[in-house]
């Protein structure tokens, strides 16, 4: 008798827990419905309540939460970049049926409301995106980890990647919903037509420009100088502009600063120009004195700048055994 009583009590407590869980779920569903993008605005307490799960009352819904810092004083640029993307995904989920929607919630916890949570998780930066898999039900996850973190450094802040990730984790895949925006349908054709008309009328002025040899020549040479002085490395690696102490050249053979590549590009340009001056301009000078003067100047420039280039290269590559006139 005693045994069955205790088991009954256990059953009752389970039921109670389940109903408590159900009421939390309904509360949040109502909140999600009221929120403009289906994203529940959280603070530390409601965050804990939303993601809480215990063996007694396992969480039977999944949650995506962004931990962000939107207010101006935090100066969180990425947070603002990510905000509209996240809202779009939240809004897209809002189009799902009510029954499905109670299995997944979108939340947003701002640093100003949830410092306790940030402190507890040891987060030093924002935004962070967490996904809590359900602990009960058909989509139950056995993972030991509480949540999965969306990797921003890998995936970036793009909508497509985020939606893809979220759509696979949601109860069922859902399409991106973008509210109809008529402006591009007006602006784009107008711009194209306007552009064509503009080009047609401006063609007498543009055509000589396009056909000018000097312009193409300049553009090609500048492009070559830019690319051979390591510009693409700067773009891909996001090189710093200069060293912290303001000096130009970065230490190490495979490191460089932006200003460094500009200096090197300038050096290449100067050397190339001195070669052109010696090969092409000096012979056309018609007086022996001025020609001599020009030749000595440019060969001097060439030797000096080349020596400097070798010196810089020796600084970059410590083992380089050669030097010219400069240390």
């Amino acid at each position, binding site marked *: 008798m005693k045994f069955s009583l205790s088991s009954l009590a256990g059953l009752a407590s389970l039921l109670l827990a389940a109903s408590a869980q159900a009421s939390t779920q309904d509360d949040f569903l109502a909140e999600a419905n009221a929120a403009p993008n289906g994203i529940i605005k959280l603070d530390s307490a409601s965050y804990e309540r939303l993601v809480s799960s215990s063996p007694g009352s396992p969480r039977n819904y999944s949650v995506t939460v962004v931990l962000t810092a939107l207010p101006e004083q935090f100066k969180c640029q990425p947070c603002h970049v990510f905000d509209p993307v996240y809202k779009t995904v939240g809004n897209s989920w809002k189009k799902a049926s009510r029954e499905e929607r109670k299995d997944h919630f979108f939340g947003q916890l701002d640093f100003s409301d949830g410092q306790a949570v940030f402190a507890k998780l*040891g987060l030093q930066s924002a935004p962070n995106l967490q996904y809590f898999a359900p602990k009960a039900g058909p989509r139950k996850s056995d*993972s030991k980890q509480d949540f*999965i*973190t969306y*990797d921003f450094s*890998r*995936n970036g802040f793009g909508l497509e*990647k985020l939606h893809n990730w979220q759509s696979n984790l949601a109860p069922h895949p859902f399409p991106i919903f973008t509210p109809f925006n008529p402006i591009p349908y007006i602006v784009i054709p107008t711009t194209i037509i306007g552009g064509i008309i503009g080009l047609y009328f401006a063609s007498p002025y543009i055509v000589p420009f396009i056909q000018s*040899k000097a312009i*193409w*020549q300049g553009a*090609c*040479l500048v*492009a*070559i100088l830019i*690319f*051979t*002085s*390591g*510009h*693409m*490395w700067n*773009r*891909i690696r996001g090189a710093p502009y200069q060293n912290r102490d303001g000096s130009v050249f970065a230490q190490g*053979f*495979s*490191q*460089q600063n932006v200003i*460094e*590549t500009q200096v090197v590009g300038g*050096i*290449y340009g100067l*050397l*190339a*120009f001195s*070669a*052109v001056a*010696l*090969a*092409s301009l000096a*012979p*056309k000078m*018609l*007086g*022996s*004195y*001025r*020609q*001599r003067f020009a*030749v*000595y100047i440019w*060969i001097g420039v060439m030797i000096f700048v*080349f020596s400097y*280039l070798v010196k810089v*290269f020796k600084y*970059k*590559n410590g083992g*380089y*055994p*050669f030097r010219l006139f400069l240390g």
Partner: protein
Amino acid sequence: MSTPIPPGPAGREVKLAYPIPKISKTTLINTSALLRFTILTVISAAAIASRLFAVVRHESIIHEFDPWFNYRASKVLVNEGFYEFWNWFDPTAWYPLGRVVGGTIYPGLMVTSGIIYNVLHYLNFPVDIRNVCVMLAPAFAGLTAWATYLFTCEMADESTGLLAAAFMGIVPGYISRSVAGSYDNEAIAIFLLMFTFYLWIRAAKTGSAFYSTLSAIFYGWMVAAWGGYVFITNMVPLHVFVLVLMGRFSNRIYTAYSSWYVIGTLASMQVPFVGFLPVRTSEHMAALGVFGLLQLVAFVGIVRRLVPDKQFQSLLKTFVVLAFTVALAVLVLLTTSGWIAPWTGRFYSLWDTGYAKIHIPIIASVSEHQPTAWPSFFFDLEMLIFLFPAGVFLCFRELRDEHLFIIIYAVLSSYFAGVMVRLMLVITPVVCVSAAMAFSTLLKTYMDPVVPSIDMDTDRDSVIIDEKGEKKTPRAYAEKVKASKPGIYGLDTRLAVLTPLVCSLVMFVYHCTWVTSNAYSSPSVVLASRNADGSPAVIDDFRSAYKWLRENTEEDAVIASWWDYGYQIAGFSNRTTLVDNSEYGVTHIATVGKIMATDEATAYPILRKHDVDYLLVIFGGLIGYSGDDINKFLWMVRISQGIWPDEIQEPNYFTPRGEYKMDASASPTMKNSLMYKMSYYRFPDLFGGGQAVDRVRQQVIPNTPIELNVIEEAFTSENWIVRIFAVKKEDDIGRGLPESTAFAKGTKLKKSKSAKVGGAKKKGSQKA
């Protein structure tokens, strides 16, 4: 270098800056022909000789990673015949999948060396295939110098050609991929590239179908040899396109391009790996589009002859607009319907530089796919890098059809070389040609003994002062100015320029030799180092480890290592590997990454499922070899995270402060990973209680002994670079491996953690 003496204007005496001996014209022509031949031979010899550092220092050995596979494939071709090679299925790679080799490689390299081998044997030269493979790259470098000479002769004159050939022969940018033993596709590809370009220029200049057919055949060979053929596929049509835009369309261009495109495309489609790509991918659409455009332009030309001028203009306009719209619509339609693959993968990642990092971490992880910092340009090209734009400038001055080719090539390749280090190879030929044009113009200008006939600074009659007191040039003198040729006056001016130029050439030679000797001549399977007293020493850990594998393991043993070492294990040890360098399956590579990145309990079932017998890691911490697996470890984590994002997470491998560290502060995930355990197993013991310093990362490794339960150390090479661990089989009487290990050691089994690990493992092994 021979400078032809310009004949003076008839009847007028030419002033010379220095006397020149009187030589008859015939002698001059004969001597210069002999000189040209001798110089070219010497350049080729220098090109070959400067690539032999590695052979002289070590021995005739295949280098690096990919060449090992090429060598193995060549052996199959030579020993078992062409058809066996064509249908070769390699069951020992990508275990248990195997790899269809015949259809997934560019066979040009192996076929080339196979032909050379057979010809030599036919002539009764009993040469080993290994020596053919080792010497192939230097031999073709000699040919490249010759092709560069021919190409440059089309651009300028013979003396410039010789200078360009000399540059090309010894420039480090090309040597880096063509030293003896570097038996890779690039070894023959650069020769084919230059020769195809030379033939194309010949064809475009002469309008000869013969030359364009030859060009197409060499293009076909190039397609069979190297994936970089796409550069030619786009370069030639672009040249034609620019010519058409500039109004330089002619029947010569039409003949040359039409025959080149048709024959070249058919030739390229014979390579099984390429197959129908030329009609189905966006990379090849430019060539097809220009082919269509040329037909249209030619058609319009015919119509123009038949229709009155006024109607023709309106006809032309409608026609151009219509053709363009239709072509674009068809292209878009075919692309969206999936008939033509859009720009993808490697080639696309050249334009959208962020693409590879996100979509194809396999490609982004390879060091030769990184962007190029400026010191690399100077390192590989030295002074040529700034003479290069000067040469392009001079091309603009004359701007013949073939000069446009140089200009387009220069701009495109400098972009590509900036995006990817390995494409330095593509820019090098054009840099050599263009720099040679600048340098040779300089030399010729300042060697020319002819002094200009007028000198406004000394001629008294150059200036008169007219009635108003203003300086003026008299009319008679102005005519003299018009007739005079530009030139250099003083002997001192000549010497002032020529001396530094010659010195810079000498310095260039020293630079190239130093770079080749120090940077590009390491076989990377054998490392050169120095003893404490400065005498040279050889670190031969790789070969001793591979030898150990070959001699001490079962013939069908499966070795798991990071993919870099797959080809070498197959080539040296002849053992089955899980992954190798062919970038064939991301999932497989990610599996190996996961094995390395997880703890023993998680890794063991995976190891057993893949029948892995041995694990091989490269560890440089003892002697400071920085190219080891721990430095590549983050890529393993990233790649496996791409497949199992919920199990492997990159941030877990960093310290709480976000640092990548191996010392006491390393994260628990890092310390439990198989990679960490295998690398540092017994490492602190070497230091006898002192601080165990990892020399690569300069960090102190904690002294707590690392326990291995599911694997055991099998072999560690002399300098600890290669460590091989054997994977234990399941315990005979059903215990978990930690229990049996503990039992064997005689220690008391602790109940807590290891028991749990054992339980998890049993579950896993049952599944297997």
